[in-house]
């Protein structure tokens, strides 16, 4: 008799809501068994602005997925993104006190707790503590246990978000009588799928461009060392087009899909395309140059802002593994070229690799796949280490 658990990866995005179901067998292997999707309402820039609408859409997607799989969900992994997600480095150090100057497990636990212990403002909740390599007497070590040294330093990149906004999303899931096991930053989820181990070791950047928000994660020596989110995404491109070329948002959206390119291709300003292409009254010619220029400016700015937010981590020599794009924004023609121009390293569109087949290979599913992967790792960890902690424990106090 196999012991299996059904987990769901849920992404509440600005354009659509995706629910992917996976079955964890014996806590070690994952089968993908169902997918539910619905177009999103009540979500703007990655934030929930209309609880009722968003809730209806999420529930519709969950129902579809459950029906497809024919099972009930046991636990949910939820992606978070959008505004109000920030990060900061937190560090701590201890002296190695044992007589043989070898680092003990106690000392590692102590320094980690100290580094994570920094207080946040009351309305903030920690999403992840990303551990950077330990430093033992100023040399970088992955596992300091039993190594010899005097001073052990631990450093974390702490990602925190608005507790209320994250709480809203959790509340929607809870409203369907489901338990949220953990929340994961979108970029981390996507990164775990699209970036290869080799790329992560060499240092790489994963940028997930959604409709309402863009998330990013930097990997170094195999681990994620910095990640974040900003409320700028594909909607901004459409909005720019709509303002610049005076048209409705839906028309701008359609132009973006038909002619948008992240790097200017038509130097000639006179070439024009039809707005609606339906030969009806109100159709008018639009210069192709204008469309491409507006899109190019916004796309390169998104990358530039990410680069600035990364600080030293965004430097070329630290990103030798390149830039990997995912999310709907990656579907924009030449978005990889645009990223190459900004970061100065090779860029590629993320693929979901061996984990997925069929339609799940598209980059829009990277996040939900990543959530399941995260859930799998988490489940096996819970099995060995006991009680789960994480953000849910912290948020419980805030919302119940």
């Amino acid at each position: 008799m196999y012991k299996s658990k059904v987990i769901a990866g849920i992404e509440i995005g600005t354009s659509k809501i995706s629910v992917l179901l996976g079955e964890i067998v014996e806590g070690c292997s994952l089968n993908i068994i169902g997918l539910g999707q619905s177009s999103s309402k009540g979500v703007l820039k990655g934030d929930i602005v209309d609880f009722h609408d968003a809730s209806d859409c999420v529930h519709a997607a969950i129902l579809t997925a459950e029906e497809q799989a024919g099972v009930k969900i046991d636990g949910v992994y939820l992606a978070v993104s959008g505004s109000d997600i920030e990060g900061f480095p937190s560090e701590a150090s201890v002296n190695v006190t044992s007589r043989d100057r070898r680092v003990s497990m106690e000392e590692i636990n102590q320094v980690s707790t100290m580094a994570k212990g920094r207080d946040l403002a009351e309305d903030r909740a920690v999403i992840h503590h990303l551990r950077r390599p330990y430093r033992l007497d100023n040399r970088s070590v992955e596992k300091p246990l039993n190594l010899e040294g005097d001073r052990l330093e631990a450093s974390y990149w702490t990602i925190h978000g608005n507790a209320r906004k994250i709480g809203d999303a959790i509340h929607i899931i809870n409203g369907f009588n489901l338990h949220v096991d953990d929340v994961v930053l979108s970029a981390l989820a996507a990164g775990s799928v699209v970036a290869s181990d080799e790329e992560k070791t060499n240092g790489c950047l994963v940028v997930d461009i959604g409709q309402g928000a863009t998330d990013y994660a930097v990997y170094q020596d195999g681990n994620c060392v910095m990640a974040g989110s900003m409320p700028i995404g594909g909607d901004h491109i459409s909005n720019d087009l709509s303002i610049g070329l005076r048209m409705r948002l839906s028309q701008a959206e359609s132009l973006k899909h038909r002619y948008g390119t992240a790097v200017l291709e038509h130097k000639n300003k006179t070439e024009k395309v039809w707005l609606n292409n339906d030969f009806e009254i109100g159709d008018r010619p639009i210069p192709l140059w204008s469309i491409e220029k507006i899109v190019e400016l916004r796309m390169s700015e998104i990358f530039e802002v990410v680069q600035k937010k990364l600080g030293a981590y965004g430097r070329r020599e630290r990103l030798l593994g390149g830039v990997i794009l995912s999310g709907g924004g990656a579907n924009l023609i030449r978005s990889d070229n645009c990223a190459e121009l900004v970061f100065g390293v090779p860029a590629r569109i993320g693929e979901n690799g061996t984990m997925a087949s069929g339609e799940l290979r598209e980059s829009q599913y990277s996040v939900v796949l990543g959530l399941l992967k995260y859930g799998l790792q988490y489940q096996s960890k819970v099995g060995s280490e006991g009680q789960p902690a994480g953000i849910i424990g912290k948020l419980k106090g805030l919302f119940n």
Partner: protein
Amino acid sequence: MYETGRMKMKVVGIGGAGSNIVDRLMLSNPNGVGLTAINTDEQSLAGSPVLDKYCIGKRVTRGLGAGGDSSIGREAAVADKQVLEGIVKGIDLLFITAGLGGGTGSGVSPVLADLASQNGTTVIAFVTMPFTIERAGRAKVAKDGLEHLREVANAVIPLPNDLLIQESEPGASLLEAFSHADAWIERAIKSIWSMMNKTGLINLDFSQLQQVFSHRAGKTLFGLGEGSGENAAEEALENLKLCPLLHTPEFSKKADQLLVNLIGGAGFSIGETQLIMDRVTESFGKDANVVMGAVIDESLGDKVEICVIGTSDISDISIFRGRKKPRPPSLEADPAELTLPKNRKNKEIHAKKVKVEQDEFSFNEGDPRGEFEDTDGFVFEGQDLDTPTFLRRGVRIPI
């Protein structure tokens, strides 16, 4: 000062940029509206061809200007309060033109608007917002000035220079870029002036204008379109849809009450008017509260100009995100008050009502953010990234 029956109109240009617009009006329309220029900089004022000009706050600035500090501008205005009161005395409709971002425009305009509306004058302010590429301090001064002005004027129509640069030829000089805003304001004022003063095929009078601005107040929307030749009307409508002051062709959905005025040349017939009216109704929707007028201006030849003024009631919008303030409960509209005849006695009530409700929605803080108007901005390195990149970088987009 131009008088029409009991109605008196005046344009007051404040500060360097404001005076430029008045100078411009003076050259193009010498027999028109009453024109006044106010500045704190004596030297710059001396160059203005306007006859009615005042250098204020000499005791504060020694006639040397406000130096980009709006508090000095304000001090100057308060010091010469009597002069300002004299300027707006007995005026029914006051236009204020100013460039926000400088010390005089941002400091003096709210004081003048306040004095005027206390006297029952309807105040419409056209203000230009600085380019993002100008230093960040100017944007802050402009933002504060706009906020102050909104509290006291009946309508504030901000013209972001960022957006208007889109209208200029590629490679235009900065001076030309600035003059674009002036030209827009000139057209706007002339259009309202024609509406009030020219022979009407379908008349729109001052009380209707007042009603648009005071009945619901809320936010102000303003757009102009022109066309000429055989298909003048359709051309004008198309042109209106491309007006940079209106974000998208959907603007009419955003306004609760829309005043649409057509201005045509001497050959403008009632039949033609009918045709245009049909087109306008088609474009703006029949159910919308649209007040339409049509007037003849002989000087226009075969041109047709459409002027749209829209206001919307912010009181029934329940969700307030971002910077918008909900309407205070004390302003619950009293139905009796709204149906009172619009005579001078009641203007005070309207002015008071408008005071708090006044807001604009064409641009948030003078920045066009379109779809993201109601959301909190994402500010990075001093720039609101919701505003289109091409606007912030001053890239001209051919349309």
